[in-house]
């Protein structure tokens, strides 16, 4: 018996010391610089407010973490009725805002058009409906020896359509914004929820819950975005895949842009942790 214990001890020690992760230096190639588009048109159901902006930046070598703004671009959005909404850059930030608020029109198509360094970019999205967040449930569950707060944001899935959404959780207490992507394969027509599980949340913390509607293409983008940014590595890592933009370069198709132009209806709820 004692021998077993010693053996186990040796085993644990060796696994601990021998099998961990470390940071290594790897030389990487750098590809051509490309334009990155982060476009958002959000209409918030509950408050009737809008968030409309386009952020333009450029790629950098992998280990140089920064956003290099793409300045002096011409940005406009064209709706289904051919109304054109021009955007203007805020100082030299690479962030562009519309001169007039773009009106809300469920089911219609919005086209983003960008002219930057003599190249034309274009992409379109359709505005889908989002189901409202109807309830927040709070629970406390054990997680690796500690108690964690679980918050679930419930919605009712509309039965007659294919729905794609993502949930977003923001709080000062959280280190990062948390996301959940959702498709209604397994709960078409029933209640579903986005879940936040965190050990740091405390009583009185304010959490903002949002649910964004997505198109099918946008769902594919956000699914991979969140999968690849939360994956923990290991031998069962999936093969990395690039996120496919819905924007294309009309002037030079081999130099397609990165990022995404998304239009969403948003359901927003604030919650105070009990």
């Amino acid at each position: 018996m004692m021998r077993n214990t010693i053996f186990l001890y040796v085993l644990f020690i060796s696994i601990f010391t021998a099998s961990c992760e470390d940071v290594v230096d790897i030389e990487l190639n750098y590809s051509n610089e490309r334009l990155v588009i982060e476009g958002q048109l959000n209409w918030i159901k509950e408050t009737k407010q809008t968030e409309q902006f386009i952020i333009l930046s450029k790629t950098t070598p992998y280990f140089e973490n920064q956003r290099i703004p793409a300045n002096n671009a011409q940005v406009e959005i064209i709706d289904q009725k051919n109304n054109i909404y021009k955007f203007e850059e805020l100082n030299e930030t690479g962030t562009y805002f519309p001169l007039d608020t773009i009106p809300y029109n469920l089911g219609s198509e919005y086209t983003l058009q960008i002219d930057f360094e003599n190249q034309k970019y274009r992409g379109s999205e359709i505005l889908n409906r989002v189901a409202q967040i109807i309830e927040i449930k709070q629970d406390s569950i054990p997680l690796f020896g500690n108690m964690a707060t679980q918050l679930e944001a419930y919605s009712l899935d509309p039965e007659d359509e294919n729905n794609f959404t993502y949930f977003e959780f923001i709080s000062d207490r959280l280190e990062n914004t948390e996301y959940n992507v959702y498709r209604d394969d397994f709960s078409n027509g029933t209640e579903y929820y986005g879940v936040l599980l965190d050990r740091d949340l405390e009583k009185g913390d304010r959490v903002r819950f949002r649910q964004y509607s997505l198109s099918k293409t946008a769902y594919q983008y956000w699914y991979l975005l969140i999968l690849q940014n939360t994956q923990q590595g290991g031998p069962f890592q999936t093969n990395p895949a690039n996120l496919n933009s819905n924007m294309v370069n009309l002037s030079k198709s081999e130099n397609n842009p990165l990022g995404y132009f998304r239009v969403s209806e948003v359901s927003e709820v604030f919650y105070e942790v009990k």
Partner: protein
Amino acid sequence: MSLKRLWFLSLCFLSFFYLSAQTNFVLSGYISDAETNETLIGVNVILPDLKLGTTTNEYGFYSITIPQGEHQLIISYLGFGSVYKNLNLKEDLTENIKLTATAEVLDEVVVNENVELLNLKSPQMSVNSLAINTIKKMPAALGEVDIIRSITLLPGVTNGGEGASGFNVRGGAADQNLILLDEAIIFNSSHLFGFFSVFNPDAIKDIKLYKGGIPANYGGRVASVLNIYQKDGNSNDFNAQGGIGLISSRLLLEGPLKKEKGSFLIGGRSSYAHLFLPLIESIGDNKGYFYDLNTKLSYTINSKNNIFLSGYFGRDVFDIEQLFNNAYGNSVANFRWNHLFSNQLFSNLSLIYSDYDYKLDFSFADFVWNSSIVNFNLKYDFKHYLNEKIKLEYGLNSIFYKFDPGLIEPTKEESQVQTNKLTDKYAVESSLYAGINYQLSPKTSLQLGGRLSNFVRRGQKIYRYANDNPINYNSSLKLYQSADPIGEDDYKRSTILKNFTNFEPRLALAFQKNATQSFKLSYNRMVQYLHLISNTNSPTPIDVWTPSGSFIDPQILDQFALGFFKTLKSNRYNLELEVFQKSIQNRLDYIDGAELIANNAIEQVLLSGEARAKGLELLIRKNEGKLTGWIAYTLSRSEQRTPGRTVNEVGINNGEWYFTPYDKTHDISLTTSYALNKKWDFNANFLFQTGQPITYPEAQYRFADFSIPNFEDRNSSRLPSYHRLDLSAIYTPNKKNKTFSGQWVFSIFNLYNRRNAASIRFQQNTETGQNEAIRLSIFGIIPSVTYNFKF
């Protein structure tokens, strides 16, 4: 087609020999180990004056037709004392012979370990055998003897790195290996997500790996056949053996049911609970362990009939407090009946049940997911020893499969998950095969065979798509997207949804130039109807097998191999040099962002491509002396591509060829064993492999507060090279008494503590915000001790 003509010609030969083989008699029998009565596989039966010989089959049976008169008979098998007999043949003769292990008869050090001697004459090439004693001596990670890891020391065999499950043969994927345990198909060969293989070494008699020139009696996978034979059990005496190691303990009991007639074997192995849990930085009430059980009953009814009943049951269990409970494993039950229709016609009938099932209980989300693959397999195989020049093998095989990709059920009333049944799939795979081994001349021999395989997908519920196309291509975004079904059809089980029939020719030719050299050539076509749906670098237990059908075609392999074989210094050394080239049609690939788990319409994310591999393998073996072992070198290239379905589509990776995750340009392995004296035995392994292909980021950009990597073309970089040195020393004290013997195995895995990268991932450091590359290396230097005993 020339192959068809050859086939026809061989049939003509066959009838000719029927007429001319009259004045000869048949010598046949079983060869077994004198100590245990365990039948021995691959024993050489030689008649030197006639320059004839044969080997025993997987059930220890041999049969040879020779002229009447006086002949000398030699039975030789490495590790056993040879038996010499003088025969005066006047009629058919049955000679059941028992061999005694050399360790028991000789005082000096055992000079020849159970290394398979090179067979220059046989057309069979690209095959490696390993005796279990050789495997048990190799230094093993954490002292846990591992059959799958040991075969990666053979030329042409690698694996996806440490902690990766399965193995890769000649640039093939892990799901392309047919793993047979006593003829039953094993779907998952690893414990603990790939750290250890599921085979308890104490219960294993022999293993044989076919990498090419695969004979017609095997089919269903395109890369290799790994045949693992369980021991039958000792029918002379009761004995027990076992071991205590760092990871697991083993105990195996065997003994006679009826002396020399029947035997039983039961072996169990279990890891200690709470294993590996520090890895997931948890404390509390968590468990992780594996166990397996091997059983076998053998009974000799009379000289013509033997029956075997064998079973295997293995399981892995992970129980992480409040989060999930996970259990998976294989179960196999197998009944076999060996019957001699005559002393020239050996038959084996097998009835096999096998299943692999997987259960994942998410307690935090209140649902459970069960999936399984069940199969019933009927096999009837004949070995027909027609005369001294011709041996025929023929048979039939039918496998019924039920694939249950998953039942998702809520475990509590308030669970938000609805009961969801992923559609079960049914299929029947049948085949008929025949092969001939024909000695064309004293120098040339031919092995020619054909396998007719048929695969039928039975009725189920399937989706209907516009233009029968489950994947749409968005040409402006150059993006593949799942198509939405336009309807659903529910077919009765009796309906045939899809029917595939393929003819798989097999050909091998040997030309023996002289007593020490031969050249061999082989071609084989193989068809694989099952596909493991996985887009990770190595298979995981939750990967789902899916059958070919309306949207998925079977994989079809064509492989050519050419070899040169030489023995030196009367078999003290041998050398094997082979080159191979293979191509595979219909290799599946996945569209970007494919969701594979619990996907009921997997056709919406699959594209069909092709794969190819070529390589050179060199094996030099030293069979005798105090120092034995081998050095293996493989130079190879393995690639795949998935072009667009039409000229307008880009395909995957722009339709370009890319390296498969198991491409290893250089693979060198050195395996040595040094017998110092009767008490001490030293062993060393060295491995060097080119790092496996990996996709690195070539840029980053900011999006939604993430730093997003933008990746280069698929698999265009490499992990750092993999190499390590392992040592072991085996100490066998003098026997204290007649019955009990013990043995200590001391080993050091990865002696110079090389931090081999199992993977490298890229992430943004949450504290500094900087992007960084993170290496995962699993086994550093690991000393271990194992104690084995036998009584």
